[in-house]
C-alpha cells in the first residue's frame, strides 16, 4: 500500500536507529555544544562533542523529534566519533550538499556507511531540515558557537 518512495524514506535502518538511537549520552567533558530547534515542528536537539587534539573523540546528544531527526542524530554519532575535525567538516558539507540536492546527489557509501539510509530524505524538501538538525548542531559545536 505504501509507495516505494515512502519505503525509501523510512528504510528499516532509519526506523531502527530512531527506536534505539546511538550516542544518546551526556558527555562529561564537552569542548563544544549546541542547541538547535526546528520552530515549525518543535523538534529539539542538544549535541555536544569532545575534541581531543584534532579528533572528535566523543559525541553525545539529547532531544526529541521525528524519525528522521532522531535517526540522523544517531547515525551522525556513529559516523563522527573518532573522526578528525577537518574530515568531519568535509563530511558535514558533503551531507548538506546531498540533502539539498532534491535527490540529484547521493551520499557516498564509502564515506557515509549506514548513513546512506538517509539518501531518501533529499527528495522530501520539507524533511531536509529534520535530517540537518543534528548536523547543524554539530557544525555549531565545532565552531564553538
Amino acid at each position, binding site marked *: 500500500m505504501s509507495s516505494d518512495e515512502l519505503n525509501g524514506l*523510512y528504510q528499516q535502518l532509519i526506523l531502527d536507529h530512531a527506536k534505539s538511537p546511538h550516542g544518546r549520552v551526556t558527555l562529561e567533558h564537552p569542548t563544544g555544544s549546541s542547541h538547535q530547534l526546528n520552530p515549525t515542528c518543535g523538534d529539539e536537539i542538544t549535541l555536544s562533542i569532545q575534541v581531543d587534539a584534532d579528533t572528535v573523540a566523543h559525541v553525545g546528544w539529547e532531544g526529541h523529534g521525528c524519525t528522521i531527526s532522531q535517526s540522523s542524530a544517531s547515525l551522525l554519532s556513529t559516523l563522527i566519533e573518532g573522526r578528525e575535525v577537518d574530515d568531519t567538516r568535509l563530511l558535514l558539507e558533503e551531507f548538506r550538499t546531498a540533502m539539498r540536492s532534491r535527490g540529484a546527489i547521493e551520499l557516498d557509501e564509502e564515506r557515509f556507511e549506514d548513513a546512506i539510509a538517509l539518501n531518501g530524505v533529499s527528495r522530501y524538501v520539507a524533511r531536509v531540515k529534520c535530517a540537518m538538525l543534528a548536523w547543524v548542531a554539530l557544525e555549531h559545536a565545532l565552531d564553538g558557537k
Partner: protein
Amino acid sequence: MTSTTPTAHTLTPAEIETIRGDFPILGVEVNGHPLVYLDSGATSQKPVAVLDAERNFTVRRNSAVHRGAHTLAAEATEEFEDARETVARFVGADADEIVWTSNATEGLNLLAYALSNASFSPDFASLKLSVGDEIVVTEQEHHANLIPWQQLALRTGATLRFIPVDDDGRLRLDLLDEIVTERARVVAVTHVSNVLGTINPVADIVARAHQVGAIVVLDACQSAPHLPLDLHALDVDFAVFSGHKMLAPTGIGGFYGRRALLNALPPFLTGGSMITTVTMEAAQFLPAPQRFEAGTQRVAQSIALAAAADYLSAIGMDRVAAHGSHVSRRLLDGLATIDGIRVLGAQGERVGLASFDVAGIHAHDVGQFLDDRGIAVRVGHHCAQPLHRRLGLTATTRASGSIYTTDDEIDLFLQAVSDVRGFFGVTS
C-alpha cells in the same frame, strides 16, 4: 446566532459533489492518489467564482480606488465598497466597521499598535494602557492572538494575564471573574480554537469583560468560514478574520471594530488615502474605515473575498455549520476506534476539525505517511505552542475539513491513520 441551527440539514453527497466541481484543485493527483485535502484550517481551497472575481476585476476594471475621476476609477471604487458591504453583512457588521487588512494577524497587530499609539498620546486618554492595567488572553490562543498582546504589554507596562484551560483544553470559565477584573482593559479570545475545533462560550466572556469595562477582541479566523457569524449579536468590540481560510485568496482579511470605538482609535499605518487636510506640520485623519487603510489597498482581493462570502451565503451558513458538525462527528467517531490515538479537546460543539497524537509516532512522520496516500493534513504545533505544552505535547496532526469534504475522504484518512502505527512498527 453563533451556534449551529439544529434544524439545518447537513449537505447531501450530491450537493457536495456539485460544490467540489467548483474547486479545480480538488481534481489534482498527489503522489499517484486523488488529493484528499484535510488542511482547510490552515488555508481553504478557492472556488472558480472567487478566482473569476479576482481576475475579472483585474482584467476589466483595474484602477485606483478613492482617487481619480475617470470611469474605471469610479467603477472600481463602487465595486470595492460594495465588497465591503457584502463582507460586513456576512459577519454581522456595518460596512463602515470593516477595515481591510492582509489577514487576521495584521488586524490584531493593527489594534495592538493603535492602542499603543493611544497610550502615548494625551489625546486618547480613554484608551490609554499603562502600568497597573491588564490585558487578558487565553491559553488556547493562536500565536497571532498572543504575541501582539505580549508586545503591547511590554511597550505600555501593562500586565498580560491568561485564562487557562483544563486537561481537555476547555477554557477555565470558573476562573473568569478572578482573572478578568476591574484592572482588565482588553480581553482577547478566539471564537473557535484552531487546534481543538471547539466553539468557545464567547457570550460569558463578553458579559464579564463589559461588566468590568474591558474591550473584547475576537479571533474569528476559524468561525467565519464555518459558522453563521453575527458580530453585533456577539457584542464583541473588535474582531478579525482571514480571507484565505474562507475560500478567498491570500493577502486579504477583515478587521471589525464597533463604530464608536473604531473612530476613537488613532491610526496605526499612516500615509495616503487616510487623511483630510495635510500641512507640512500635521495631518487630519478620515473617519473609519479609511483611517486605517493607508496606501493602495488590495482591491481585487477584497472583491474576491466578497465573492467568497457570497458563495458561502448561497449555500447557507447554517448548512455549512451542519456539515462541519457532521465532519467533526465522523472524524471523532472514527478516530475513537483506532488504537493509540489521543484526540485533543472536549466533545461537544465543534467545527469540522480534529487534532490528535499517535502514540509513539511523531506528527511529522504521521503527516508524511498520509501524504504518501495523497492526504494533506497539518502537522506541528499549529501556531499554538502554549496550548500544546499545556496538553503535554510538542506536535500533533490536524485534519480539518470544509464544505467540499466528503465522507469517503474522511474514511480514506481514517484508514491511513489506522495503518500508520503498523508501518512504523509501533505497537502497544
